[in-house]
């Protein structure tokens, strides 16, 4: 869906930051100066037939695309499908996640509207904040001091040519490795480490996959037509001295936004080098985070001393430590993402922003810790009882004794059906 709608949009979009005067049907902006890029997006939304629905499908598809990658990654993690011989494929996958986020960011910055332009400014500041090479890197990537006219066309090349080429290549690699290694499977009747049980790829699996693609397209088409998204005409063209509130990036960059918001005002100078307050949350923490994610299979091998090949999937409960750590990680990223929208939360729940920030700062450490511990205990519980704790019967079972009175039925007897 992204490729199809994206190609369509490319035919109408102008990646040009040169100023033009708007003369189209959207009255509140008529006569105002804006970049040709922004003007072309207005034209797509208001003048090109089917343009708006294509644009909206494209944006919804981007949000759901990254969400799907995350859901898939979480599944692979909790079932241990990244173990030997699939470590390389896992790293390809993490790379794909990073690239998908990059594609999203470059994509929503193309309309050059007030909201995405504010995000570009923050990205520029993040680059500048890197010690030693920061200012060079910022000027290099943007082509000068922010704001530059060249950045839009550079983002366009990235978004339409370079990044898709790499992504498609890596997806090909990802699927190719999968094809060669064959997919993993849960334990079951007739299944072992040395075989694969399932329906043939042709025609069954291919049809199912095609069906999935079509139905996904249907969901995205419905969203794209029925729910308004990224109404850039409301934000207006980018103006470096103006800003609107609330200002957030798309959800998959929300964790980065939250990290930057929650970080305390800590800006030390070490040996004459200033470490700007947005360097650590904006550059270091994401770098560490993605590196840990990518190298996880090797870390787990080292800790569990398990370097055997695995083609069978784990049930998450059978690996309580990994599951607990994974859960803690998910909670951590979730809280950061929620923190990215803390002003919207403050408005919705009528809580002062300052209280919200402190609440989230504390929650960032407490919730993953507690969540990890609870998850670990739940796993252990489920391993021993063999049943889902929520579906487990509460209370005791009683049996009437022959001489009157009641006695308790022990769990073993209950299970064996006595």
């Amino acid at each position, binding site marked *: 869906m992204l490729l199809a709608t994206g190609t369509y949009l490319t035919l109408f979009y102008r990646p040009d930051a040169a100023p033009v005067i708007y003369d189209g049907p959207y009255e509140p902006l008529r006569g105002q100066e804006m970049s040709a890029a922004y003007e072309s997006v207005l034209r797509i939304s208001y003048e090109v037939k089917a343009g708006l629905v294509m644009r909206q499908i494209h944006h919804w598809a981007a949000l759901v695309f990254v969400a799907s990658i995350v859901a898939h990654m979480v599944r692979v993690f909790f079932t241990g499908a990244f173990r030997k011989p699939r470590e390389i494929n896992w790293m390809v996958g993490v790379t794909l996640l990073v690239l998908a986020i990059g594609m999203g960011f470059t994509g929503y910055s193309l309309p050059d509207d007030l909201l995405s332009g504010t995000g570009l400014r923050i990205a520029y500041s*993040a680059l500048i904040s890197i010690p030693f090479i920061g200012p060079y890197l910022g000027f290099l990537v943007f082509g000068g001091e922010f704001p530059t006219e060249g950045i839009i066309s550079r983002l366009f090349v990235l978004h339409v040519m370079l990044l898709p080429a790499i992504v498609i290549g890596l997806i090909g690699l990802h699927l190719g490795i999968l094809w060669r290694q064959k997919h993993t499977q849960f334990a079951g009747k007739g299944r072992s480490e040395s075989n694969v049980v399932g329906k043939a790829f042709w025609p069954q699996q291919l049809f199912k996959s095609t*069906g999935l693609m079509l139905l996904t397209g249907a969901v995205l088409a419905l969203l794209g037509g029925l729910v308004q998204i990224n109404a850039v005409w409301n934000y207006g063209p980018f103006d470096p001295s103006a800003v609107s509130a609330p200002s957030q990036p798309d959800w998959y960059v929300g964790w980065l936004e939250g990290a930057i918001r929650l970080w305390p005002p800590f800006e030390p100078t070490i040996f004459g080098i200033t470490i700007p307050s947005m360097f650590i949350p904006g550059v270091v923490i994401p770098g560490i985070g993605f590196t840990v994610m990518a190298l996880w299979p090797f870390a787990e091998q080292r800790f569990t001393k398990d370097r055997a090949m695995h083609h069978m999937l784990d049930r998450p409960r059978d690996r309580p430590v990994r599951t607990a750590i994974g859960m803690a990680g998910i909670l951590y990223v979730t809280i950061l993402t929620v923190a990215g929208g803390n002003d919207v939360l403050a408005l919705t729940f009528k809580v002062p922003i300052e209280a919200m920030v402190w609440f989230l700062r504390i929650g960032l450490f407490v919730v993953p810790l507690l969540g990890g511990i609870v998850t670990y205990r739940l796993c252990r519980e489920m391993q021993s009882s063999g049943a889902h704790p929520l579906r487990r019967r509460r209370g005791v079972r009683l049996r009437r004794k022959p001489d009157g009175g009641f006695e308790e039925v022990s769990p073993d007897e209950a299970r064996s059906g006595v």
Partner: protein
Amino acid sequence: MKGARWIYAAFVVSMLASVGLVTFYFIGESAQVEGVLLGLALGGMGLGVVGWATTLMDVPTETEEREPLGPGAEDPAASEPPLAPEEVTRRKMLVRVAGAAAAAMGAALAIPALSLGPRPGDRLDKTKWTAGARLVDSLGNPQRPADIPLNGVKTVFPAGFEGEADSQTVVIKVDPEVLELPEERAGWAPEGCVAYSKICTHAGCPVGLYRAEARELLCPCHQSTFDVTRGCEPVFGPAARALPQLPMEIDDTGFLVATGDFPEPVGPSYWNMDVSGDEAGCSSGSRSDSASNTGPARDCERSFPITGRSCSARSRCFASSCCLRPAPI
């Protein structure tokens, strides 16, 4: 085929929706209609295909043995004859030299990437504000103190540079009694009008929110809050550096003018920025356009052993400054 009727129906619905889409393109325009029709077209087809695959196809579950993977699985080396010692050394040399050549070529091919952008120079240190520059609003109208209402806020630029991103400035008029500026900057706020850089020192967003009763500027991006009465010191949020204050006075014709550039770099911090905040103190070069100073280096309160630089902290921010300005890169 009873159970399969829905599959036929799904395909038919899809067909009708597609025809509807084509028709609608010519007769109207509505994202909602287009989206729903497209959804039905794709969804009907999808349901049909899935139903076909799962319900109708009578394909048995198969079991396939895995091929052995990993080392030892294929052994191509075993089929080659072993190399003689001289061949091994020569091959090693060749690999090394070829590798070095490839690395060097990589660097050579990558170097034009440096054409992507200019060197920063001192562009991050300076703005377009100069001594004598009038404060104008976004339409170019010069501002008198009376043009700014009490408890009001206005975005201004240096005359001739309206809209210039790095020079964006907010002017706020407060009751002069409540101002608690550092003494060397007290004269920068005539008639209660104080001017600060609008670029947040955290991540560069325009600090556009002003809470008039609290006299605090709030940046909407990450909620950094600055106290206007005390030189825009950050009081909440991730910003660690005060917003630089613009030195201002009223000229002979009654308009507000700047008396120089900001004393510190505007916007987010970077690794080698100079926040000494006073042009007269540093011995090598000054930041404003005034004549170069010849005063001695000030007594510094802090010094760093490795670089040998001596620094003084002028404001309450965490980044301290260097009196000896680093040579322009």
